[in-house]
C-alpha cells in the first residue's frame, strides 16, 4: 500500500503545474475564452509539446504508456487552473474508445492527430430523454451495404462544436432501453448530414447539440462490436467519471485555498473575518470534505484497474457520490465565505463553483450513483 507518487509521476506533476502556472492564470483564461471555439490553440499545442496529449496511449501507438494515476495528476492540475481545453473529450473519452477497442487502422488514423494536438474529438452520447442511462439510446445506425446510416439527435456534446471527429453512440438493434444492440461509431464532424448548433456552457466550456440525418459511414467506422458496445461505453465513461473526480479535487483544492486567503485578508469590524470561529469551522469542514473527496478520487483511480467490471463500476459510482457531495459543500461555502464578491463574474471563485456544479451533473449525479451503489448491494 502506497499513496506516494513515483519519481516520474512527481516530475509529470511538476511539469504540468509549471506549464499552467505560466500560461493559465485567471486573466489569461479570460482571453482564451474569447478565442475562436472558446479555448486556446496555443495552450493545446503546449500540452502536446509536453507529451500530455499522448499520455495514456501505448508507446507502440506513439504515446507514453501512462496509467490511471498519470491521468489523475493531469486532471487535478487542469481542475486547479480551471482549464477550458478539451482534454476530457479528446484524450480521456475519445482516446479511451480508441485505446480500448480501436482497430489498428482506427488508431493509425486518429491517434497521431490527437497526440500532436492537431485534432480533437467529442463524445455524442446524451439524448433528449436518456438522462444518465448509457444504454438508453434511440439514435439509430442501420446497415446499408457494407456501411451504416446514422439518424438521431445528440445533446450537450462537449467540444462538439470544434471537434474534427465525433464518437457517437447508436442503437443498431432492439428497443430504446435494451442493453444489447448498441454500437459506437467514429463520424467525421464534416460528414454530410451532420448539423451542429454550438453554444457556451454554464461553466465557460463549449458544447453543441448535433443532429444526424442519414449520415453514411463505412464499415470501418464502428469501434468494437457494433451490436454489443455497452460494456465498452461503460468502461470509457467510468474512466471519464474518474477523470472528473480528479478534476473536481483540483477545483476544490483551489477553491479552498482561495477562500482561506480571502478570509485572512478581508477585514470587517476591524479584524480579518477569518478570525471568527464560525468561519473557521466552515473552512475546516470544507477541508474535511475536500480530503474525503481526494481519498475517493484515489480509490476510483485504483478501481479503474479492478478486473471485475461490476466491482469497478460500483467503486467509481461511490467515488462520484462522495465527490458530488463534497463539491457541492465546498463550492457553496466558498461563495458564502466570499460574501457579495463571490457573487460577481469578476471574482474567480464563482467560476470554480460553476465548473464544480457542472461536474456533478455530468455522467450521473450524486442521487443517480447513490442509487446504483444501493442497488448493487452497498459497499461494505
Amino acid at each position, binding site marked *: *500500500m*502506497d*499513496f*506516494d*507518487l*513515483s519519481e516520474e*509521476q512527481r516530475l509529470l506533476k511538476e511539469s504540468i503545474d509549471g506549464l499552467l502556472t505560466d500560461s493559465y492564470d485567471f486573466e489569461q483564461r479570460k482571453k482564451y475564452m474569447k478565442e475562436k471555439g472558446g479555448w486556446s490553440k496555443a495552450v493545446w499545442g503546449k500540452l502536446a509539446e509536453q507529451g500530455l496529449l499522448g499520455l495514456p496511449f501505448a508507446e507502440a501507438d506513439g504515446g507514453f504508456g501512462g496509467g490511471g*494515476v498519470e491521468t489523475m495528476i493531469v486532471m487535478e492540475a487542469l481542475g486547479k487552473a480551471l482549464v477550458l481545453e478539451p482534454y476530457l473529450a479528446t484524450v480521456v473519452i475519445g482516446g479511451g474508445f480508441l485505446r480500448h477497442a480501436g482497430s489498428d487502422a482506427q488508431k493509425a488514423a486518429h491517434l497521431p492527430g490527437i497526440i500532436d494536438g492537431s485534432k480533437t474529438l467529442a463524445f455524442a452520447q446524451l439524448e433528449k430523454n436518456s438522462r444518465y442511462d448509457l444504454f438508453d439510446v434511440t439514435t439509430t445506425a442501420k446497415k446499408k451495404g457494407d456501411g451504416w446510416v446514422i439518424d438521431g439527435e445528440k445533446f450537450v456534446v462537449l467540444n462538439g462544436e470544434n471537434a474534427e471527429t465525433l464518437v457517437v453512440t447508436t442503437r443498431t438493434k432492439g428497443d430504446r432501453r435494451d442493453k444489447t444492440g448498441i454500437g459506437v461509431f467514429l463520424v467525421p464532424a464534416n460528414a454530410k448530414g451532420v448539423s451542429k448548433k454550438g453554444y457556451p456552457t454554464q461553466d465557460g466550456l463549449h458544447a453543441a447539440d448535433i443532429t444526424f440525418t442519414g449520415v453514411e459511414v463505412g464499415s470501418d467506422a464502428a469501434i468494437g462490436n457494433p451490436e454489443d458496445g455497452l460494456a465498452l461505453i461503460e468502461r470509457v465513461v467510468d474512466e471519464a467519471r474518474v477523470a472528473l473526480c480528479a478534476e473536481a479535487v483540483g477545483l476544490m483544492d483551489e477553491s479552498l485555498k482561495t477562500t*482561506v486567503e480571502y*478570509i*485572512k485578508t478581508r477585514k470587517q469590524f476591524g479584524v480579518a473575518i*477569518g*478570525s471568527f*470561529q464560525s*468561519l*473557521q*469551522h466552515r*473552512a*475546516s*469542514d470544507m*477541508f*474535511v470534505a475536500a*480530503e*474525503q*473527496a481526494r*481519498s*475517493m478520487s*484515489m*480509490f476510483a*483511480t*485504483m478501481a479503474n484497474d479492478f478486473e471485475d467490471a461490476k466491482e469497478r463500476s460500483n467503486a467509481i459510482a*461511490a467515488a462520484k*457520490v*462522495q465527490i458530488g457531495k463534497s463539491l457541492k459543500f465546498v463550492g457553496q461555502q466558498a461563495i458564502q465565505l466570499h460574501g457579495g464578491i463571490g457573487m460577481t463574474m469578476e471574482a474567480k471563485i464563482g467560476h470554480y463553483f460553476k465548473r464544480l456544479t457542472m461536474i456533478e451533473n455530468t455522467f450521473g449525479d450524486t442521487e443517480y450513483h*447513490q*442509487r446504483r*451503489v*444501493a*442497488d448493487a448491494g*452497498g*459497499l*461494505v
Partner: protein
Amino acid sequence: MDLAFTKEEQAFREEVRQFFRDNVPPDTRRKLVEGRHLSKDEMVTWWRILNKKGWGVSHWPKQYGGTGWTSVQHYIFNEELQSYPAPQPLAFGVSMVGPVIYTFGNEEQKKQYLPRIANVDDWWCQGFSEPGSGSDLASLKTKAERKGDKWIINGQKTWTTLAQHADMIFCLCRTDPSAKKQMGISFIVFSMKSKGVTVRPIQTIDGGHEVNEVFFDDVEVPIENLIGEENKGWDYAKFLLGNERTGIARVGVSKERLRRIRDLAGKVESGGKPIIQDAAFREKLAACEIELKALELTQLRVVADEGKHGKGKPNPASSVLKIKGSEIQQTTTELLMEVIGPFAAPYDVHGDDGSNEAMDWTAQIAPSYFNNRKVSIYGGSNEIQRNIIAKAVLGL
C-alpha cells in the same frame, strides 16, 4: 501509488482473523455485536489471552513487549479487532499511560508499571477532565502539593471512564499555581485504593454506568510517582493525546455495525416486506457506506504516511479522522434506530455485569444511539477538532 495490500499483509490479516476466531470467547463477541456492556472479568480475560499471544501492547517498542509491526500491520490488526468484533485493549493503560511511561518515565517506573499494564494486572483510568475544565483542559485545578517525600492531592476529576474498575489513575495536577496555566501542571500516577479517593458513579442517558466523578481529599502519594519532570505534565498530556491517531476513526466498528444493519434490515419488515427492499432506506445505508469507504481511505493515507515518514508530531489529519469517524458512528446508530422503529421503546435496566442477559436484543439499540452521542464530544470535541484544523492546517 498502489492501494493493494501485499501478499504478506494479506497473510497477516488471515492470521489475525484466525486467532480471533479461535480465541475470542463467543459470549464476549455476541455481547459486543448486540451492543451490550461487558463485565470486568470478560474484558480482562480477553486482554490476557491477547497479551499471552504477544499482541496486548502491539504498538509499544519491542523492548517493552511490542511487536515491531509496520503501520499497515497495526492498521490491519485494529480493523480486524474492531470488525470481528473483539474488545479493544484498555486504552488508558495501553495507548495512554504506557507510552508516556516508556517515553518519559525512569527505569524504575518502566519496570514497575509496564508489564502490569500489558497484562492488565492494573486497570488504569484517566484523571484529566474536571467539572470546570473540559475543552479548556489546561484550566484544571486539582492540586498536588509537595510535603516531605509525598504529594498531597486535593481536587476533583470527572468523566473518569470505568474508574469503578480501576486500580491506578494517571492524573494531571497543578503543582505550580503561580505559573501560566499550561506550565504548572505535573503528570502523577497513584493507586485508586489510596486513602482519600472517592469514586461516585455518573449515570448517563443510556442508563449505563461508564463514567464517574473521582474526588481526592488529602490523598498521599509517594514523591517518586511523578512521571518525567515536575511542571512538564502538559507536554506529556499533549503527547498522549496526539499519540492515538488512526484508531479514533473506529472504521472497523462502523463496518461491523453496517453489516449488522444490513442483516437486520433483511429481517425487520416495513410495509409488508423487509426494510432493505425500501429504496429510500437502501440509499441512506449506501450513503453511509460510501462515507465510511472515504474515511477508510483517508485513514490509510495517514497510516501510509506514518509508515513512510515516521510518527513525528501529531498530524492534523487525525482531526479529520475524529470528526468523520464520530459522525459516521452516530449515523450507524441512527440507522439502527430506523430499522427497529417502534421497538426502540422498551426499556430495561442494564448494568456492566451482564445481568441483562435475558433481555431482548432490541432493547440495546436506543441506549446505543443515546450512548454514541458521546463520540463527538470526547477526545477533544468535534468543535475543538475544527479549531485544530483551522489553526494547524489552514493557518487561520
